[in-house]
């Protein structure tokens, strides 16, 4: 618990960064009607996928925020050697990432939906799919960030590494929202969340040991 409080304190120390990722999401969504068409019917078709992709990009952008500063000042090394189980540390980092980068975006989703002419029914299911699917994104993004810690051009590398793994939550999440809540996709997404929750922190922990040893 104290680990989580520390994470949040560090991440929220400069609220500008949280607002920045939020702004990024809003601006990108605003670009699409300008670039494609203001026609609400077309926008409505694209809206779910667009918001999901923007969420994905925001998740990637914010991915190494919590890790990089820890790596640079040596706290990551302390955590690897420390008392708390390393998988728990990694899980806390994923939670911190989700709370600061993705949850604000989910809260703002109604606004984005209005910009893209989304029906309120779809909006509801979109938010549900985001609530279930974005933790998976967080878990994968923290894993990827740990892998690219301290490497040159880590940012571009992050997308290259993570893209295949982000496809299942993206596809399942958008399908769930677009079929307006058909439970099949919901179950799959929830199952994916459970499996990711159980396995990814351990994978991240082993990568953390590798990263610290670098």
């Amino acid at each position: 618990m104290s680990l989580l409080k520390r994470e949040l304190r560090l991440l929220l120390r400069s609220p500008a960064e949280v607002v920045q990722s939020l702004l990024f999401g809003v601006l990108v969504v605003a670009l699409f009607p300008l670039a494609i068409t203001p026609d609400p019917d077309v926008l409505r078709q694209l809206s779910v996928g667009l918001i999901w992709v923007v969420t994905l990009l925001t998740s990637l952008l914010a991915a190494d925020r919590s890790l990089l500063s820890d790596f640079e000042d040596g706290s990551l090394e302390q955590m690897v050697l420390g008392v708390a189980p390393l998988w728990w540390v990694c899980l806390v980092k994923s939670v911190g990432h989700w709370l600061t980068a993705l949850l604000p975006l989910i809260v703002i989703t109604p606004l984005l939906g209005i910009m893209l002419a989304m029906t309120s029914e779809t909006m509801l299911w979109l938010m549900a799919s985001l609530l279930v699917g974005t933790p998976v994104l967080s878990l994968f993004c923290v894993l990827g960030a740990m892998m690219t810690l301290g490497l040159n051009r880590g940012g571009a590398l992050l997308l290259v590494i993570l893209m295949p793994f982000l496809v299942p939550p993206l596809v399942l999440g958008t399908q769930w929202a677009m079929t307006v809540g058909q439970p099949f996709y919901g179950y799959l997404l929830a199952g994916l969340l459970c499996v990711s929750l159980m396995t990814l922190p351990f994978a991240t922990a082993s990568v953390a040991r590798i990263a610290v040893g670098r």
Partner: protein
Amino acid sequence: MWRWFHEWGSPRYFYARSGRLLPYLAGLTLLLIPTGIVWGLLYAPADYQQGHSYRIMYVHVPAAILAQSSYAMMAAAGMVSLIWRLKLADAAMQTAAPIGAWVTAIALITGALWGKPMWGTYWVWDARLTSTLILLFLFAGVLALRQAAGPSQSGGRAAAVLAVVGLINLPIIKFSVDWWFTLHQPASFSVTEKPAMPIEMWAPLLAMVIGVYGWFFWVWLLRLRQEIREREVRSEWIRQRYQNEF
């Protein structure tokens, strides 16, 4: 008897034994691939539906099969290197990755070339094409990570973790892409048809598939042996073997 197995993990014994395997692999490859190509391109009967343009199948299908299995082999090597900490397994994974990536690219390119006469378009977002594209991205990720993390042992381990995570995720990815496609499948054509082929058509295909696998192992062994030479350049047995070249 177990000792024989364990010796395969040592670069020195592996080098010696794989050297003896090389001529057989080369022979198999050089026998089967030209046979398959000449037979498939020239002598197999023309398809009643597609005419002669189906012949690219003899390159495309072996490449596609190999693309998937080479990823599995590479990830298996990565798993061995993580669990048993064998540097040889790490070298095997490192050398297999570029070959697999190129084979996947060839599968995609030949598939696109086949698609134009068959479906009228170079690319279509169907389940198999999309899965193969994602496979290419998986290879790209492993290669990029390996390149960025360096040739050190930690770089190898990071890439191995990525490859194994990719392998475990592969069924999930394929499943989600399949469902995504079945939802959006255009009704105008069926991409996944597998017509029953007369033996004159699939015999050269079989020759090509076996030949391409032989080629893969041949090239993989060649690259792996080179990697061993580079890594063990300071050890005694390499010096003795190649002393006249130093």
